[in-house]
């Protein structure tokens, strides 16, 4: 066969494929009086609603399992000893007669199997018939169950709402899940829908994909595994969150917080225990932590304030801002600077690309900066060791009254300026100055390469920089 014929055959088949695709799209997408219809031909056009009810006596302690699709499930506590099942059927047919005829075939299936009541519909049976495949129908359950019932719900394409249960296990997709007032443990798995859970007495586990997660008032431990959605948790026990492509925010945690996040910012506030955050491509912020804080971020800034314990922070391409840290501080920044206020137990800081400023510190401090300067202001009299080195930047130290240390300052190339009353210089040469104050004590080593070193009295600094 000639190449031209092969080309023509491909052209003809391509034309046919394009026509068939256009036809299919036109058949399944449209804008009508009831809104936009996208690839859901069965659920479009006229619909009619019909109701059915059933009451099922159950022994005490019976658990409930509801299986449904294309419709919501609402479950609440009611009278003991019975389960009231209300089913709303919505049938999409052109006429009410046709819809009623189909709706009459939709029935409630409720089977008591030992201590478990299974509730559902005969949807599978109807959909296996040729007519059932063509007809769109929704089944919305409203159940009233005995108080303190353990509940399991498996639903698709419909909202799930469960309240006042003993335990809850919910699997849902393509709509929202709402859970409230559960006395025991709860477990939720959701796809393509938001999850809202509040007032859970036990542990709570949530696995969510493509939806927002909101938790409130969880007494036990909370575990969240989320992708493509924001996570918000308020007033929980200890919490572990694994998240990606969404913002994470936790507040009011009684215990430890552990967050592993990718592609989203993380904020943790009011944590009684330790806070551990590992993130990427988003800023991380910790405010008011009762224990230690450990924050590791790739491509993001770090902010921590009011941390009672120690702090370890590591980041890149972002600055670190710290305020009021009670324990030892360790910071490592690549392509970012550090701005810290009130560090109670010293710091070890390594940074590159920007300045390191510590205003108000106690304890031993060790700072190393590449392509940036260092500015150190102790909280009071300086008696602990200080080691500061800057490449391509200046080093500045303020000295308060009552300080006691031995100074060793080097600036090469650059100059060392010392302006502190009571600081006696014991050796001075080009770029190298040694001295002591208060009779000596800890070692204060200041080193600048391609920058100056300046040691000045705190009052002098205040006067020059009011």
């Amino acid at each position: 066969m000639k190449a031209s014929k092969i080309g023509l055959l491909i052209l003809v088949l391509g034309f046919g494929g394009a026509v068939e695709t256009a036809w299919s799209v036109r058949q399944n997408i449209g804008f009508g009086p009831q809104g936009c219809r996208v690839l859901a031909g069965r659920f479009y056009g006229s619909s009619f609603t019909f109701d059915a009810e059933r009451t099922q006596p159950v022994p005490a302690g019976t658990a409930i399992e509801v299986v449904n699709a294309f419709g919501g499930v609402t479950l609440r506590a009611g009278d003991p000893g019975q389960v009231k099942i209300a089913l709303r059927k919505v049938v999409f047919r052109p006429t009410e007669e046709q819809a009623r005829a189909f709706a009459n075939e939709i029935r409630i299936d409720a089977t008591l199997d030992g201590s478990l009541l299974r509730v559902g519909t005969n949807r599978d049976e109807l959909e296996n018939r040729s007519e059932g495949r063509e007809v769109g129908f929704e089944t919305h359950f409203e159940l009233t169950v005995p108080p303190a019932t353990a509940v399991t719900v498996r639903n698709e394409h419909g909202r799930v709402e469960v309240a006042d249960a003993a335990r809850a296990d919910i699997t849902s997709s393509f709509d929202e899940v709402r859970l409230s007032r559960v006395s025991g443990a709860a477990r939720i798995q959701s796809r393509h829908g938001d999850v809202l859970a509040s007032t859970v007495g036990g542990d709570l586990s949530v696995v969510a994909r493509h939806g927002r997660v909101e938790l409130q008032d969880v007494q036990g431990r909370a575990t969240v595994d989320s992708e493509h959605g924001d996570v918000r948790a308020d007033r929980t026990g200890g919490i572990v969150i694994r998240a990606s492509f969404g913002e994470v925010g936790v507040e009011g945690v009684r215990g430890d917080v552990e967050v592993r996040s990718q592609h989203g910012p993380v904020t943790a506030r009011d944590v009684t225990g330790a806070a551990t955050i590992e993130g990427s491509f988003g800023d991380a912020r910790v405010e008011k932590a009762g224990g230690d804080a450990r924050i590791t971020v790739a491509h993001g800034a770090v902010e921590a304030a009011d941390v009672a314990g120690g702090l370890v922070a590591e980041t890149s391409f972002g600055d670190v801002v710290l305020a009021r840290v009670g324990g030892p501080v360790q910071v490592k920044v690549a392509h970012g600077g550090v701005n810290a206020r009130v560090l109670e137990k010293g710091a070890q800081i390594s940074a590159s690309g920007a300045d390191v400023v510590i205003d108000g510190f106690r304890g031993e401090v060790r700072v190393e900066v590449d392509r940036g300067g260092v500015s150190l202001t102790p909280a009071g009299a300086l008696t602990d060791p200080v080691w500061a080195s800057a490449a391509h930047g200046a080093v500045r130290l303020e000295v308060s009254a009552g300080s006691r240390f031995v100074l060793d300052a080097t600036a090469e190339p650059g100059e060392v300026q010392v302006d502190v009353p009571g600081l006696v210089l014991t050796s001075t040469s080009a770029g190298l100055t040694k001295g002591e104050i208060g009779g000596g004590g800890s070692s204060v080593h200041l080193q600048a390469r391609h920058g100056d070193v300046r040691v000045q009295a705190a009052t002098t600094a205040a006067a020059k920089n009011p």
Partner: protein
Amino acid sequence: MAASFSIERIVIGFALLGLGVLWLLANAGRIDLLSALRTWWPLLLVLWGGLELAAALSRREARRGGS
């Protein structure tokens, strides 16, 4: 004339003719173009196949006549 007999040209000719007529009718509001194309496009393959068969038979007859 026999040497200039080309299946591709004939198919393209018929296709252009058919498409033009369909488009014209659609613009006149007489037919639904997409529906008509979707129904009748396989006719191109049928037409082509028929012409290929006719050409093959004509070549065989020519060889017989020559021998």
